[in-house]
């Protein structure tokens, strides 16, 4: 114990001394280093992008990993279909008023329905599977799926356009980001700039944020994330629960951030495995402000 205290005193002194004498020059080197690492980063970014072609095989892998746990209880629940029923939240009952011109009579008799509706469902879902149309061959559909995904996924079309739009400012953003304080703090966490930026860019690519929402530029979402050693996300939680509860815009923004982290396309995160201790807990701050420089 005393040993540690003396170490502490020693190093604190070291900090003070170094800060006093050596800091300006460190600052200088920092500043001169930063632009250089920007260059490195942008290169790294580019080299990452091509891996996209190699990516398609990847998503299935992470997808499979998190999948088994939910699958197992699910298949189990298939045999006794009763349990899942109460588990899945009951839909609110809304009786709709027909279009005003067609019929102006109000209908408010949904109350008795909730009880017998799920009942009906259970019974009807259970004993008469004969009516079910022959399902298409599941394997054929899988193959079709893969083919479809390879040939013309719908979002592929959208992507280049968006890329073009965001690309020019990206360098600036990076330079900007590198100069912020949090940036330097990241270094303190024992990961290099490029290591962190790799992850940052990886997540940014999966963060599909709701643009055009009112005051979207003023929303900041904090996620705390627990990681597995293989770079997959073990769990993620939105910190701003109170704001979530009363602001649907914020909820949409926060959930988009959560989806970014849970997106199989961004899993596993490219973090150095040997530094797991440093990133097994992460706090991610999503700040769309720079995206909306309207």
């Amino acid at each position, binding site marked *: 114990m005393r040993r540690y205290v003396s170490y502490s005193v020693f190093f604190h002194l070291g900090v003070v001394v170094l800060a006093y004498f050596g800091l300006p020059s*460190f600052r200088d080197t920092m500043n001169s280093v930063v632009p250089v690492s920007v260059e490195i980063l942008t290169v790294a970014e580019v080299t990452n992008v091509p891996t996209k072609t190699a990516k398609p095989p990847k*998503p299935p892998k992470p997808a*499979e990993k*998190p999948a088994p746990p939910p699958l197992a209880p699910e298949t189990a629940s298939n045999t006794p*279909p009763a349990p899942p029923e109460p588990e*899945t*939240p*009951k*839909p609110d*009952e*809304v009786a*709709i008023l*027909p279009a*005003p011109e*067609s019929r102006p009579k109000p209908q408010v008799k*949904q109350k008795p329905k909730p009880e017998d*509706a799920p009942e009906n469902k259970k019974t009807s*879902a259970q004993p*008469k599977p004969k*009516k*079910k*149309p022959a*399902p298409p061959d599941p394997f054929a559909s899988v193959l*079709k799926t893969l083919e*479809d*995904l390879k040939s013309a996924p719908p*979002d592929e079309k*959208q992507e280049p356009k*968006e890329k073009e739009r*965001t690309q020019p400012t990206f360098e600036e953003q990076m330079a900007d980001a590198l100069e912020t304080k*949090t940036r*330097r703090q*990241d270094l*303190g966490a*024992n*990961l290099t700039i490029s290591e962190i930026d790799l992850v*940052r860019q990886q997540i*940014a690519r999966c*963060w*599909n*944020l*709701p643009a*055009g929402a*009112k005051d979207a530029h003023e929303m900041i979402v904090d996620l705390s994330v627990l990681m597995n050693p293989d770079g997959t996300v073990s769990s993620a939680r939105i910190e701003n629960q109170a704001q979530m509860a009363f602001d*649907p815009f*914020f*909820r*949409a923004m926060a959930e988009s951030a*959560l989806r970014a982290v849970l997106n*199989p396309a961004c899993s596993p995160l490219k973090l150095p495995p040997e530094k797991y201790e440093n*990133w097994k*807990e*992460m*706090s*991610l*701050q999503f*700040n*769309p402000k*720079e*995206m909306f420089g309207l």
Partner: protein
Amino acid sequence: MTISYRNFLKLFMLVIVLGMSSPGSSMAELKIDITRGVVEPVPLAVTDFFGEGKGEQDFGEKIAGVIAADLERSGLFAPIDKKAFIQTGKSLNVLPRFGDWRLIKAQALVQGHVEMTVDGRLKVEFRLWDVYAEQQMVGLAYFSVPSNWRRVSHIIADAIYERITGERGYFDTRIVYIAETGPRTKRVKRLAIMDQDGENHRFLTDGTILVLTPRFSPTLQEITYLSYYNDIPRVYIFNIDSGRQERLGDFPNMTFAPRFSPDGKGVIMSMAKDGNSDIYKMDLATRKVVQLTTHSSIDTAPSYSPDGDEIVFESDRSGTQQLYTASANGGKAKRISFGPGRARYATPVWSPRGDWIAFTRIFGGNTAIGVMRTDGSGERILAQSTARGDWVEGPTWAPNGRVLMYFRQEKANKQGRGGRTRLFTIDITGHNEREVVSPVDASDPAWSPLNQ
């Protein structure tokens, strides 16, 4: 306590090397700030709603189709091709296999159930699932007469849109517009109405009388518009349900450019008198009229702010047509449009969300649809005429203040024929310009409020 001496030392070395001090920051936790993202349509899967019987299945398929089309048209969603679906049919009704949906890159899943109740009504139940979080985001059930299935679909699409974007939907809405037929020199103009997706189209007037600038009431099934009945232009009110038309007030002179107040209880409009026109508001219940502007120039095209406290209008008091805001009780006007060069501004419309004012800008032979903040800052052009002789005009807001509709008129030939006039929508981000399908030429659209 468990922090090892080595790590301790390492951390401190780093602190020294970086010359930074961050009191209170936890060293164990890695902090990363993400300041960039992508703006792409959310990939989602809308499965055919499950039904036991053939009729129910048909409904299920049609409903899913309308929902997917609504969401796709918004530009914020990319429905995934049904052919890619791995899990279909009844098993979905128990619980989605989220792994299957992740595999085809769906971020959200819409699944539902259609049932004919014993009393002949249609029960439509749907659930929206977050595929990554494996959670239900919303689940609702609706009852309606079967013929109302389209409306149920729009309402479900609205619920999905609202849950994912945080914004009110706008699919359960209608468009009233001026349907145009015949050559430009002898144009027949009729009031027409249709669903937001172009369905359920019908004409409201027969075209014998010229009609212009229809505007929806925010609260009732009513439209206010300009009609040349007996060749005298006056503001009228049209009841959609009864088809009744009524002249608004007994003004000695031409009244035009009407718009409802946000509470639906009043109409604001222009009245011309001796070459000058000013803005008046009328209380619909008492028919009391109040003059709001008194300037000797032309003041017209007024539009209320959503709280009803302010108005925006166009005026040429500065010498050219510009936009001004003022209190809804009259008083001093403040110019907000300061465009490039000799740009002129027209048809201002205050967003129902309150944050933007949409306008038509005429500048250098081009017309454009744009938005500016209510103080005139942040002007952005969203859509513009593409060729000489083309024309864009008349923005109207979707009830959620997120999408604008306007019309685009192409140049006609020398005989006044050809040159389509059509309605378009565009997102306020300036993306996703879409034509609204209409059976004939269409101009001067007005978006209804969300149906109640």
